[in-house]
């Protein structure tokens, strides 16, 4: 028979009743506990992250923009043959960058003061560095987008004015900010006190990998929809297989280094959604590895794989950001994640204080 659910007796008038006797047997009288550390059982000491859907969505779109710009620019630098491909990457980077500022501003408690992010330059704060990175990245993406349009002769007036600037220079120059944008979001989450985010040092690496795979996935979709060149698609498909495998490996590393702190991601709805992310990424790899059969061109496979990659990336950001709340509310895990270690001895009776006698 399962133990009876006892009402919490916080009123001393209840002492001496049968319930109180049973509480006493269980080590509790009223709300009293035998172990002092249990007194705040269930009441978290960490604040619940105030971040919601906008932040996950920003991480997702920002990641695609970063990855698409990086892959496109690297292609462009690799030779004449990849120029057109690079331009597609830059156009994708532009399109996916558009929602980012809106999402970022909307997420703020005081959106009218969003520009205060740029009031100072403070690279020691990942969020401040991120704001400057996004601004820099926007500049490069904007210029490369205009260049791509100008090349296609879509801009009769602006075209000649941007053509003097070599495309490859803009592509290479924008790489540092694009790569920073891809990874800083994970570093930002890691540089907090929320156990599911800070315990593993690999969240920045995971988001970086996910940014590049999703950027490549978005390009794959754009190429599959616009280009007739099946050779390009074959190159993208084999590259996405490699990137997808790296991403899954980093995710595995994240779990291995998180220990019990990753528990919020392994329970309930979040576990289901994270499984969805892994399945989608795995599916993308499988689609990219399979060879086209009758009625199944590699363009269709590339398109499907790209879409699966994007679904996987979106679910990954969503679950990791959401996991912050249950993680902050898991008091026992938070206490454990902040328990004494040689680097951080902490404060408490466990420490042999030299304080009394040596003074």
């Amino acid at each position, binding site marked *: 028979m399962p133990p009876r659910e006892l009402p919490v007796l916080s009123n001393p008038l209840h002492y001496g009743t049968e319930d109180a006797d049973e509480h006493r047997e269980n*080590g509790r*009288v009223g709300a009293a*506990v*035998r172990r*002092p*550390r249990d*007194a*705040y059982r269930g009441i978290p*000491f*960490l*604040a619940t992250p*105030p*971040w919601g859907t906008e932040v996950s969505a920003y991480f997702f779109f920002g990641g695609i923009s970063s990855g698409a710009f*990086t892959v496109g620019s690297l292609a462009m630098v*690799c*030779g004449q*043959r*990849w120029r057109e491909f690079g331009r597609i990457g830059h156009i994708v980077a532009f399109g996916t960058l558009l929602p980012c500022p809106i999402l970022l501003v909307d*997420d*703020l*408690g005081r959106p*009218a*003061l969003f520009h*205060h*992010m740029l009031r100072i330059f*403070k690279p*020691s704060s*990942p969020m*401040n560095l*991120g*704001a400057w990175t996004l601004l820099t990245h926007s500049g490069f993406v904007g210029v490369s987008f205009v260049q791509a349009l100008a090349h296609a002769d879509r801009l009769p007036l602006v075209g000649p004015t941007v053509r003097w600037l070599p495309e490859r220079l803009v592509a290479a120059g924008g*790489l540092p900010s694009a*790569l920073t944008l891809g*990874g800083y979001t994970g*570093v930002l989450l890691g*540089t*907090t006190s929320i156990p599911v985010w800070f315990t593993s040092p*690999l969240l*920045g690496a995971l988001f970086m990998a996910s940014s*590049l795979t999703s950027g490549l996935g978005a390009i794959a979709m754009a190429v599959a929809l616009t280009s007739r*060149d099946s*050779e390009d698609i074959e*190159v993208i498909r084999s590259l996405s297989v490699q*990137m997808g495998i790296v991403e899954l490996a980093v995710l595995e590393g994240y779990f291995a280094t998180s220990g019990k702190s990753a528990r919020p991601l392994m329970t309930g709805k979040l576990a289901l959604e994270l499984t969805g992310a892994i399945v989608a990424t795995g599916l993308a790899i499988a689609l990219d590895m399979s060879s086209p059969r009758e009625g199944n061109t590699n363009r269709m496979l590339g398109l499907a794989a790209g879409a699966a990659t994007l679904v996987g990336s979106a679910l990954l950001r969503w679950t990791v950001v959401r996991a*912050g709340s249950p993680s*902050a509310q898991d008091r026992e895990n938070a*206490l454990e*994640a*902040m328990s004494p270690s*040689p*680097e*951080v*001895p*902490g*404060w*408490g*009776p*466990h*420490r042999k204080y030299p*304080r009394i006698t040596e003074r």
Partner: protein
Amino acid sequence: MNEGMLVHDAVEGMLRVSPPPPREPTGFFTDASLCIGCKACEVACKQWNALPAEQVGWTGQSYDNTSRLSATTWRHVSFAEHLLPNGDIRWLFNSDVCKHCSAAPCQEACPTGAIIRNEFDNVYVQRDVCNGCGYCVVACPFGVLGRSENDGAAHKCTLCYDRQKDGLTPACAKACPTESIKFGPLAQLREHARERVTELHGQGQTSAYLYGADDSGEYKPLNAFFLLTEEPAAYNLPAAPRRPSASMGRRYLLSAITGVGLSALTVLAFRQNNGAR
């Protein structure tokens, strides 16, 4: 709010004025062994800082009806009932507050520079600068800060900056009837705290220790520290808070390695297929 005000607000926060000259660093020493759980500090804090009431009612676990610090609760008396082996019940009280960490994760995280160290070396949120990003809320290992539903900005204990500027004691310390909350110059407070521990040990209270009075490896001392008699978890405090920024470099490095590695894979893929189409 009219448009003129909006413009005024938008511009005012961007301005940076030169800070006042530094004064003697101040802090709190909260002595849990003297706390009687009267919650006068909570009330005085709410009253002086005009903070709205939050939850009214018991937590269901004890006579604690605040349960935690938040954007509108800057002092919280932790109220724990502890069952002794002989069946007696003992109460453990402690008036929790912002720790005004000497290397504060919230201040390090703040992207706008809204969180500063003021001339008293207290950690202070400039209300007109904060844009409510919420990063300090997740950076604090003690869950001190909250983002207010009322104005969208982050709030916490100011260590009664306004009162200090006028030479007054912070409201909570002023109201404390047992002098469990002591306010003063940090050097004096630390000296006094050590003497108090020695005194208690001499009286047989050997479990007394100081929480946050000294370095804990990467975590620097707290400018609002405590004398406790049970393990930190009994007061809902972490035994060894981590300083988030301590591992930031490693995180960036691992991220960069991944980015550069995948970029190399990309270049390799395009180079290999650089031939004629």
